[in-house]
């Protein structure tokens, strides 16, 4: 005889099991009640003497971490009774987890576009400190001052920024008869097609410009920044209502078809890693590329003989986007609400963001663009002609960034995902598919705002 039923556990064991589950459930409810701290009162006058320990968390590693450490040393020399403990190499998610679990974080340095929408509520409102200590909002480049506040709260200040532009190989352009870089996307396409060479088997030898979304820094955010696109309206996604998006995507799709999607994919797959010395722009396999200001430092170190120039990225003609600016992003720094030493923490933030010498030292060390106006104008800022392009672009009124929202990078990732898929296919139904992107982004925002 067989029995399909397992032998039931004895009663005491069942009782013990129920007790354990009840214990776990009780612990869940007890531990799930953590709440965001409130902003505390700010002293009417800044303290004349600071002391204690400040915990600084940031994402920089290796050489860049040493630059931060050097700035911290300078701060400690100014305030001998303040000790700054630096936690380097901590990604935004890790810092957010530490903050949420009540860990020792006084000052946190994160990425604006990806994290601020979530992290802002854990950071102190800096506006009262700024008013008290006479730090004006317009000390910073406009776009950065705007992007480092979220929903009206000044929860952080910008440190350094990444500015995107066009890198072009002057030798290859000269060989093709060009003396100046393109200013519109059509000009970019024409020049790129002329600069592209093919091998005897039909595969690409040298590529003028790689139009594939997903290639290195080609994203919806960076390319969208050259076309005056609209991301959101009244807090909801509005990409389908922006004619610039449709025109930009149609242009890119057409450009890809002129070379061939498969040829581009094969060529791209055979290229070296973006961050290695085999970077395809550095080794001359790609004549023009969209990249950030950091590439200047990479070229200086990895390909010092490369003959190249930089320029603002071309714009979509007729889109309303002015030539000279482009997409920018920034690192932001703020004081954790739960900090036990807010005055010293604010002093460190203020020093790193508003002291001209510190901002210049930070920018020179990190090879990023300063966000502080006085640092940009400082003669101590080391700037080669190629690097100067990005400094000017950062101050240009046409500079733009993707909106900071509660869903962080999901906003641009949803668009990237659609665009990557769209560039593969035969096109068509663009309006309908952009409406689907709007729906997907709105659904993600809706989930995040659910009450």
């Amino acid at each position, binding site marked *: *005889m*067989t*029995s*399909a039923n*397992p032998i039931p556990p004895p009663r005491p064991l069942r009782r013990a099991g129920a007790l*354990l*589950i009840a*214990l*776990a*459930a009780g*612990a*869940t409810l007890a*531990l*799930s*009640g*953590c*709440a*965001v701290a409130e902003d505390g009162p700010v002293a009417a006058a800044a303290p004349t003497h600071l002391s204690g320990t400040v915990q600084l968390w940031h994402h920089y590693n290796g050489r860049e971490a040493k630059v931060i450490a050097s700035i911290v040393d300078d701060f400690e020399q100014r305030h001998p009774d303040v000790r700054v403990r630096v936690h380097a190499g901590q990604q935004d*998610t890790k810092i*957010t*987890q530490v*903050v*949420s679990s009540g860990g020792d974080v006084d000052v946190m340095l994160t990425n604006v576009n*990806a994290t601020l929408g*979530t992290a802002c*509520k854990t950071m102190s409102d800096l506006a009262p400190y700024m008013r008290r200590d006479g730090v004006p909002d317009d000390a910073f480049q406009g776009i950065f001052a705007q992007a480092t506040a979220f929903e009206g709260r000044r929860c952080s200040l910008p440190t350094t920024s990444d500015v995107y532009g066009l890198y072009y190989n002057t030798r290859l352009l000269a060989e093709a008869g060009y003396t100046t870089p393109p200013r519109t996307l059509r000009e970019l396409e024409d020049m790129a097609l002329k600069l592209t060479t093919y091998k005897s*088997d039909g595969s690409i030898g040298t590529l003028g410009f790689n139009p594939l979304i*997903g*290639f*290195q820094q080609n994203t919806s955010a960076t390319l969208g920044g050259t076309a005056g696109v609209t991301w959101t309206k009244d807090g909801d996604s509005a990409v389908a209502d922006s004619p610039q998006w449709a025109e930009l995507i149609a242009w890119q799709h057409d450009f890809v078809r002129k070379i061939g999607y*498969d040829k581009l*994919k*094969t*060529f*791209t*797959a*055979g*290229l*070296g*890693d973006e*961050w290695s010395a085999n970077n395809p722009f550095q080794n001359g396999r790609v004549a023009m590329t969209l990249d950030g200001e950091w590439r200047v430092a990479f070229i200086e170190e990895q390909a010092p003989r490369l003959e190249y120039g930089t320029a603002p990225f071309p714009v979509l003609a007729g889109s309303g986007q002015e030539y000279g600016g482009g997409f920018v992003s920034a690192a932001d720094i703020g004081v954790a609400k739960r900090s036990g030493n807010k005055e010293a923490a604010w002093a460190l933030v203020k020093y790193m963001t508003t002291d001209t010498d510190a901002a210049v030292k930070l920018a020179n060390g990190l090879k990023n663009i300063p966000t502080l106006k006085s640092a940009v104008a400082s003669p101590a800022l080391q700037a080669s002609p190629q690097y100067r392009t990005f400094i000017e672009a950062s101050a240009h009124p046409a500079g733009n960034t993707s909106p900071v929202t509660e*869903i*962080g*990078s*999901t906003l641009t*990732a*949803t668009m*990237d*995902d659609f665009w*990557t*898929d769209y560039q*593969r296919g035969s096109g068509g139904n663009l309006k309908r598919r952009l409406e*689907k992107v709007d729906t*997907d982004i709105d*659904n*993600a925002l809706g*989930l*995040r705002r*659910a*009450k």
Partner: protein
Amino acid sequence: MPDANPIATVPRARAAAHHTPNTPEAHPKRAGRRRTLRSRLSIGSMVILPLIGLVAFFLYPLCANLYYSFTNYDLVGSPKWIGLRNYDYLFTQDPRVGGAARNTLWFVVILVPVRMASSLGIALLLTRRKRAAGFWRTLFYLPALVPPVASVVGFVFLFNPGTGPINTLLRKFGIDGPLWFNDPSLSKPSLLLLGVWMMGDVMVIFLAALLDVPKDQYEAAELDGASARQKFRFITLPNISPVLLFSAVTGVIAALQYFTEAAVASSVANGKTGIDAGPDRLLGYPNDSLLTYTQWMYVQGFNSFQLGYAAAMAVVLFVVAAAVIAVLLRRAGMFQQKGA
């Protein structure tokens, strides 16, 4: 000889205490109680630590995960109860979870059986190999010793459409090689090749099971005129079925949690091995064809800070995994108690 087992001494002590006068000189009853208490404390101390571990590292996370799955929780604020909203988003609105689930299902349905079949095939061949058996066994097992990340990196370079040796060789024969890891329709089969190459861990278990099948059963079958196919069907398979079941269960669980190989393949094939690219840009390349369920869960939880939603995804994965394993075990008759 004194009894070393304290539990065994308890009834004897009780019996002795029943007949002994209650004098201060002899307290066998009290001594017995003390021994019982000591024995219970000793057992309790052995049980309590595993129990604490069970509650802290299994039951609490399980209950917490279930609770968070009904909340809007972004890691930094208090979780807000939103009922079934996360599940509604998961089943009706999330644009990428369907593709991620289908990719994961592909690995469960294709990768696991193909790996098992190829492992069994190689193990069967190795049992017949008499000369240099050790060498061949080692040779087929070796790839399993290579760290998975290194294997994936090696495979992606091997199959690089532009510079990889496979396509270079194909071009010499006038064949335009495919894009392999850069083609959404071939990226999963390319990982399947890797999975088969690394099948040494499963193969070695099958080999041990095959070598354990009693030889006399084969001899008896031969005397009865059984064919090779019949011997495999009626002797080999029943004998190694527990090992097959074990392999299927662990393989399905691993496939449902498939993460590392697909993530590394995506980032290496994409040419973006790090620095600024967040997981939402790295994972899934090309065209989300390598985005798995657990990767998407990770992105939602720790990149998009949708912890409540990631918890709901985890609950669904837990239920699916439990259901698949239950079906596997039931079909294998593991719940049936052998009776008379």
